[in-house]
């Protein structure tokens, strides 16, 4: 069964386009010639302060999300606002920031140059957004990695003519894609090429299958402005102190308690062996606390674990 086409256009090099997607619609970003990176921003259409967040998405799906990944909004909203339902290539990046005028000026001596920030800002201006509203981008078709020293790198773009990604909107969104303006970086193989964008209706059951995923279940900790202590968006630029401010931090003051745990000779021997590894702490109490919570994470925590099991064996 084919998706029903609603809209399509071709973005020429140096340009971008914002489109409104209703919940359940699908945005396709497609290679026209191949080898082209697409930068991408995504906003709640009815509240632009909620937008896609690379960091939460990295936490949940890693540095190179592909088919099946959700696109998460920033805390405190913290919810999936779209789903990457199709990715014919599987080479995306949410590690690198968007290129900007400054980078070409500072790194190349090119102060007037196509760049993703300015392209994105100009496309988003159609919807009243300012350059400050451009957020960290989802870089579709961008091939990146991290070297053994921990430094990121950009590798040759692998996208072929006709490769595409499809993003299913889980709420009404403004989706803004642009043809990455980096022609003097490896991002798009040193040549800017057009990209096609198209809006389709989702297939029957497609939206429901995403919304029924465990990660998509609603939590009271996914907050919206109705619970904010400051509900209005600040409209002036100057920051001034609120003299009536009274701090209201959660669970403060943090109370600590002592807890005696009885261990047998054999258990103490195990604990002392763990201390000898030098990995988990230097005292019995430190190591026992580290072990307990590490064990808990391994056994019971939902979602991706955040520590290296192999390192614990070192």
């Amino acid at each position, binding site marked *: 069964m084919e998706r029903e086409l609603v809209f399509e256009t071709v973005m020429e090099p140096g340009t971008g386009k914002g489109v409104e997607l209703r919940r359940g619609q699908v945005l396709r970003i497609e290679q026209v010639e191949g080898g082209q990176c697409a930068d991408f921003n995504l906003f709640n259409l009815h509240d632009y302060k909620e937008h896609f967040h690379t960091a939460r998405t990295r936490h949940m799906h890693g540095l190179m999300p592909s088919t099946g990944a959700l696109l998460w909004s920033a805390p405190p909203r913290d919810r999936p606002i779209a789903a990457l339902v199709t990715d014919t290539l599987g080479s995306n990046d949410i590690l690198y920031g968007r290129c900007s005028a400054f980078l070409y000026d500072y790194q190349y001596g090119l102060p007037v140059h196509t760049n993703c920030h300015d392209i994105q800002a100009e496309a988003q201006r159609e919807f009243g957004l300012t350059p400050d509203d451009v957020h960290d981008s989802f870089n579709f078709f961008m091939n990146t990695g991290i070297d053994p020293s921990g430094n990121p790198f950009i590798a040759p773009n692998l996208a072929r003519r006709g490769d595409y990604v499809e993003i299913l909107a889980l709420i009404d969104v403004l989706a803004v894609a642009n043809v990455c303006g980096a022609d003097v970086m490896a991002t798009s193989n040193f040549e800017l090429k057009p990209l096609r964008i198209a809006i389709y209706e989702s297939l029957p059951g497609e939206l429901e299958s995403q919304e029924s995923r465990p990660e998509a279940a609603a939590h009271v900790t996914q907050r919206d402005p109705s619970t904010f202590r400051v509900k209005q968006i600040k409209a002036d630029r100057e920051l001034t102190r609120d003299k009536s401010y009274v701090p209201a931090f959660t*669970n403060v003051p*943090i*109370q*600590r*308690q*002592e*807890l*005696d*745990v*009885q*261990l*047998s*000779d054999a*258990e*103490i021997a*195990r*604990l002392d*062996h*763990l201390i000898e590894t030098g990995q988990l702490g230097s005292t*019995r*109490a430190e190591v*026992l*606390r580290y*072990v*307990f*919570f*590490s*064990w*808990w994470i*391994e*056994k*019971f925590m939902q979602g991706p674990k955040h520590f290296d*099991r192999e390192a*614990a*064996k070192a």
Partner: protein
Amino acid sequence: MNTHDVNLRLNQQQLELLDRTVEEQGSSGRGDLIVRALNEYYEEHFQTPAT
């Protein structure tokens, strides 16, 4: 059998997690669960299985 006391310092949020797990796992108490964690963690990470 000798026993050894290890004095842990935990805050109320950590104790909340500990107490909830004690209840869910049917442990006899905080210490019992922590000892179980030590043994299971050690056996999984540091003990070579018998061949």
